[in-house]
């Protein structure tokens, strides 16, 4: 199963605020890499960098390199983003949706409340960490 993790999941897993589900999610994924792969765009790496110290970011990069594939933003076809902007997303969020579709991910995991959740024809699921864990921790694939 291919997953895209939004930057808030990483930052919560690293200790931002108190969000045990995100901590649990990232730890669970470290032991399920063979069945659950993670890809993220460069934008997410940059968002993390902007919100942590240089010392922390050095460690974060090591973690990301160990269990995440990073793609350059520029690779995502422009028209994918336009489609999601037309659905009402802001350009940057539209890009994340476009990226998720472009890589063929099954699930986008993020904590934002509003993200096209009323769209029934999305080619991927959008879930929070807790929802993902509820569905997958007891059902290993």
């Amino acid at each position, binding site marked *: 199963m291919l997953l895209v993790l939004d930057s*808030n999941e990483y930052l919560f897993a690293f200790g931002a605020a108190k969000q045990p589900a995100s901590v649990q999610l990232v730890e669970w994924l*470290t032991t399920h890499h063979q069945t659950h792969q993670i890809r993220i765009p460069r934008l997410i790496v940059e968002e993390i960098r902007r*919100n942590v110290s240089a010392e922390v970011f050095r460690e974060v990069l090591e973690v990301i390199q160990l269990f995440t594939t990073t793609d350059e933003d520029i690779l995502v076809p422009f028209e994918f983003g336009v489609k999601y902007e037309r659905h009402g997303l802001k350009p940057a969020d539209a890009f994340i949706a476009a990226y998720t579709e472009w890589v063929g991910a099954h699930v986008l995991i993020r904590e934002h409340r509003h993200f096209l959740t009323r769209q029934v024809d999305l080619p991927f699921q959008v879930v929070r960490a807790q929802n993902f864990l509820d569905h997958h921790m007891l059902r290993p694939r």
Partner: protein
Amino acid sequence: MSDKTTKELRHRLTHIRELMAKQRSPLSSMTKEQVIEAIRKTREELWEAKFAPRT
């Protein structure tokens, strides 16, 4: 992923959390909603700087 890599990942995650707590990252003292809002602002700023000039 080998057990060794999983072990290393867990060790590094623990280290990151220790650093975040030690450095008193602003994010550490925020609520979940505040963190989400902070990241949203970051995303918009990065997007503006990176792609807006091209559109």
